[in-house]
């Protein structure tokens, strides 16, 4: 049992890392990775929302499939996740105003973040039980956090200490960086069968 959970975490963090191997959640990956602090905050927020969303959507899915309503999966999941993110936003505004400020406009973006919806649907598709689903979501969140932190670290060096051609500055070099990072994560492929 424990073994399979560890395998799930490792596979989600490294092998099928969401932004870098499955290309989910690219928008915040590129948008919020300018500074290490906000990247960290965003990663933690996404992890939190992922676990919470799974905790809410997994039971709902059981109910839905019991009543032969599995075709409503996507619509219901989006609805539930949107409401959850609103909840998280209110919670953060109250208890973590500094983080709330640094995340700014990207917090509502989690609402429509495909990584969150993706992890919820993957949990159902892989026939995970409740614990496995929660661990899987946590692992996906950790993988997202890892990718964000690496990206933010690289980008902070790119801005200050490198002299690159003007035409490469900003978005182009960010995309190149993301591509190289994704390539390097390809090295983990096949580690978990």
């Amino acid at each position, binding site marked *: 049992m424990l073994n399979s959970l560890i395998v799930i975490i490792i596979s989600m963090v490294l092998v099928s890392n969401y932004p870098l191997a499955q290309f989910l959640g690219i928008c915040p990956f590129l948008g919020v990775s300018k500074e290490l602090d906000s990247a960290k905050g965003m990663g933690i927020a996404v992890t939190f929302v992922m676990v919470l969303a799974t905790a809410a959507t997994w039971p709902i899915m059981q109910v839905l499939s019991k009543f032969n309503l599995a075709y409503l999966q996507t619509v219901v999941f989006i609805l*539930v996740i949107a409401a959850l993110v609103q909840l998280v936003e209110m919670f953060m505004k109250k208890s973590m105003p500094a983080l709330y400020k640094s995340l700014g406009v990207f917090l509502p973006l989690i609402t429509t973040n495909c990584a969150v919806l993706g992890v919820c649907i993957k949990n159902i598709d892989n026939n995970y039980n409740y614990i496995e689903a929660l661990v899987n979501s946590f692992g996906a969140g950790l993988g997202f956090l890892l990718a964000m932190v690496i990206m933010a670290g690289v980008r902070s060096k790119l801005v200050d200490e490198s002299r690159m051609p003007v035409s490469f500055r900003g978005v182009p070099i960010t995309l190149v960086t993301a591509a190289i990072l994704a390539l390097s994560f390809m090295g983990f492929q096949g580690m978990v069968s």
Partner: protein
Amino acid sequence: MNPIILAILVVVAIGLVAACILSFASKVFFVPVDERFALLREELPGANCGGCGFAGCDDYANALVEDSELSCSKCPVGGPAVAEKLAEILGKSAGAEEKKLAVVMCNGTTQAAKKLMQYSDIKTCKAAKTMFGGMNVCPYGCLSLGDCVAACEFDAIHVEDGVATVDKEKCVACGACAEACPNSLIRISPAKNVVIVKCHNTDKGGIARKACDNACIGCRKCTTVCKFDAIKVEDNLAFIDPEKCKNCGACAKVCPTGAIHNERKKPAVDPAKIEAAKKAAAAKKAAAEASKAPEAESAKAPEAEGKEEGAQTAKTEE
């Protein structure tokens, strides 16, 4: 049950539950915000264009609440109307803060500025600038193709006689034109400063004069005549310190090329107003005379009557 209705019912039910939880949470996690924030946010157009320099309308409203020094007229979408309302909410009249205006620091009218070439390519200043620095001999001056006109959201700047001219009534000093000008000719400066060096040419006097009749040649006549030590000549170009300048206009009088303008000299002259003023003056004069010599007039009056009577009697006699 009809699957469509069932699907709708399920989604609506989940939505309702979520709504209940959210409304409950909004009470529990209520954060007291400055009540002015909501009012300000309501007045802002909600375009989230970032024209004000903030991440969105929410951000700008927040900054307005937190920083009392911040200008209310940063919203280019809402324009002056919104600025006024924002100022009203924040309890400061829009006029209370120093009014600023865009000032075009060029005076190279079509007659004054010498042409380098006949430019007939893409009609933007930016494009013209790449072609040997523009169509004028002076590479610093107004290119008159209206990048600033296009940038202005308020229809406050127009190219007149080869130079961009700011409509002081409409200008809100947003700085869009200043950013658009490839020669950085437009400056946002306090509206109270009406004496302005309308030149941006830093070449030596001879070269500048050859390029444009109205150029500043760095002769320093203005610095010697200024009693307030407000003018400095740097890089062959006069600069008036807006803090020290008292708008006396002495420099504008001595400037040999007319590069320094005293804008107070030429208020909008309306012929009808002049007529009215003349009439008013005449009426005043008459009234003053009447009050000065009431006795003389009353003395004259019976005389005139007497004359008339005399004339009448003469007529009857005939």
